[in-house]
């Protein structure tokens, strides 16, 4: 694959996503502006206004209609993108399982933000976690570069013939959406070659071969169709690994189902999602300097759940800390129970600790994460802990 080396640029996460979409140039984009996603649709509107993309951009009256339009447009045979956050994603919820059941590879950026109430515009993962069981693939970004890279990788995974599922690319609200970082873009021609042409399955606009989409199922067909989605999700793991390899060949940037940092010889591992993965890497470095063998891991693909990779990383460790930027009220952090399930088949299960943190945008500093990790090393942590809560 021919590749041109481009100069680094300074850009925020929303801008990076919009930039990636401009390079991909989807057929249709339907979106409603919501903080902190707004810059994506504002930037993209400018590309449309200046004729830089061929996209049919529809300014819908709500997120419910945004995702509806996207599901329908993708069913019709158009490569389709959208973006949302928080209340917007909640408002879309009815259409989330419908879109995945229709097996259309819509790509959606989610600028993660706390869900009301009380109303709060800052970052946590309450929105993504509420969308977790709706049949969408979910990717997380830990910095602006990976937010950009994920936007380019996502359609490749979603549109793969064995997958055909919609995909969410998560990026932390404000921390990634609004903060300017250094980023290495990919040449537009290379992006277009990497992403390729959209090849829809049974598109509605192929009127000479009419098909019915979104039909009524009785119990047996419903069950069987759900199982087909399960199988497609399983395939998405293999496909993601393959696409990551191709992406590395193109850019030199390496992603895995679970990204790891100094886990090999670690005795203690932190599992964390999104922008805090970077903060955790700094925490690991500082603790390593003090002679404590710590590592960090981030599921880059959160759905489908990369259970085997996580089990491999946890094997032989003394303790694992699972950091959740959301709490399933009345239970645990959502990732905690999933990581515990992933560790359940290990010969010797590490001690498992849950840290709820960063709720509604609460501070996530190195000192907070270090305090949490030190408490698992000392064995003073509780099963569920609320890190960084000030009041």
């Amino acid at each position, binding site marked *: 694959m021919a590749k041109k080396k481009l100069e680094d640029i300074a850009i925020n996460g929303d801008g990076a996503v919009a930039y990636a979409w401009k390079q991909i140039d989807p*057929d*249709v984009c*339907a979106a409603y502006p919501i903080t902190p996603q707004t810059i994506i649709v504002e930037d993209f509107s400018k590309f449309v206004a200046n004729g830089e993309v*061929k*996209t*049919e951009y*529809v*300014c*819908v*009256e*709500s997120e*419910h*209609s945004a995702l*509806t*339009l*996207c*599901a*329908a*447009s*993708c*069913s*019709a*045979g*158009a490569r*389709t993108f959208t973006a949302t956050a928080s209340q917007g994603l909640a408002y879309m919820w*009815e*259409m989330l399982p*419908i879109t995945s059941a*229709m097996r259309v590879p819509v790509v959606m950026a989610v600028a993660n933000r706390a869900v009301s109430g009380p109303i709060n515009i800052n970052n946590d993962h309450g929105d993504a976690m509420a969308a977790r069981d709706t049949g969408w693939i979910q990717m997380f970004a830990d910095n602006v570069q990976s937010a950009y890279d994920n936007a380019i990788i996502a359609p490749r995974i979603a549109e793969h013939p064995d997958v055909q599922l919609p995909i969410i690319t998560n990026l932390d609200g404000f921390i990634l959406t609004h903060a300017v970082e250094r980023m290495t873009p990919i040449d537009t021609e290379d992006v277009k070659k990497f992403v390729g042409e959209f090849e829809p399955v049974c598109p*509605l*606009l*192929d*009127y000479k071969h*009419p*098909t*019915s*989409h*979104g*039909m*009524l*199922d*009785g119990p047996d*067909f419903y069950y069987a169709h759900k199982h087909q989605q399960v199988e497609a999700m399983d395939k998405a793991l293999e496909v993601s690994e393959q696409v990551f390899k191709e992406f590395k060949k193109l850019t030199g940037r390496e992603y895995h189902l679970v990204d790891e940092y100094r886990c090999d010889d670690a005795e203690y591992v932190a599992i964390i999602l999104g922008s805090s993965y970077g903060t955790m890497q700094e925490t690991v470095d500082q603790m390593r300097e003090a002679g404590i063998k710590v590592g960090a891991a981030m599921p880059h693909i959160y759905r489908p759940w990369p259970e085997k990779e996580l089990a491999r990383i946890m094997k032989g460790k003394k303790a694992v800390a699972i950091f959740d930027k959301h709490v399933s009220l009345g239970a645990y952090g959502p990732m905690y129970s999933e990581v515990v399930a992933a560790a359940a088949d290990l010969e010797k299960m590490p001690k498992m600790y849950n840290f709820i943190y960063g709720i509604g945008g609460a501070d996530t500093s190195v000192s907070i994460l270090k305090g949490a990790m030190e408490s698992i090393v000392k064995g003073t942590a509780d099963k569920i802990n609320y890190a960084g809560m000030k009041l």
Partner: protein
Amino acid sequence: MMSTSLKNLNQLPVKLTSGHRLCAGCGEPLLVKQILMGTQRPLVVSLSTGCFEVSTTVYPYTSWNVPLIHTAFGNGAATCAGVEAAYQSLRKQGKIKEEMDFVNFAGDGATYDIGLQALSGAMERGHKMLYVCMNNEAYMNTGIQRSSATGMGADTTTSPAGSVSPGKQEYSKDLTAIMVAHNIPYVAQASPHNWRDTVEKAKKGFNCGGPAFINAITPCPRGWRTSPSMTVDMAQLAVETCVWPLYEVVDGKYALTAESLKIAEGKIEKKPVTDWINAQGRYRHLKEERWAHVVDKMQANIDKRWEKLIRLSKD
């Protein structure tokens, strides 16, 4: 476009096939077949959740030999708009050559109530699509609950007639007027008893070059408590009593059509609302003397709306 004669319409390909699972006497398939006779271009049909959708798309069977999409209840207009947006994009790119049409069919619940926002949004944005409301005046699919299209005095499962209530206590929403207020090129009220009028209106809707809306009275024998053999007569009675006037609004200009025009011109007699009430089981309780004032209010409201329509059509 061929002329609207039965001889010609008979020759058109049938897009909604027989074998669907709608109730005997349902007004919906009559109406849908008439609307689909309004275009001979390739088209995509979109459905909002409702009787019509669940009866014609029972997997692994389909009653459709044209492309068909359904997503949810309150978003038929957005679904149809999504297909149209894909078409606009692919046509501009030269990937589709033919001119195509897009139509959404929805019940009154999906149109007057839960889907009103999506409908308003799609009309405002100017998608080139026809939206058809199959108005049977209640949520029939889930067991005859009131909608905002339900007429005053109707007995439904959520507006039951009881010892202190005469059934639904509010007038129906004038959704057609709300659609006119969107300043779209074509809005009409239709009835399947008059196939010629309906097909003509569908033609105009498909050919108006922008968003079009047709609101059609669509009798439901189950919900109206009428005989399945009386469907066409009930639709006609709705028009003859001026409960459901036939008219169209082309670029903002009102014109009465068919029987409604004849009533306005004094060529046919306007029937009293009691004819409408006496023909249907859902109004059975209104025959009691104690609800006479409700019947009077119904008649007064019909007269008021009818006179307003006559005024508007003379402007």
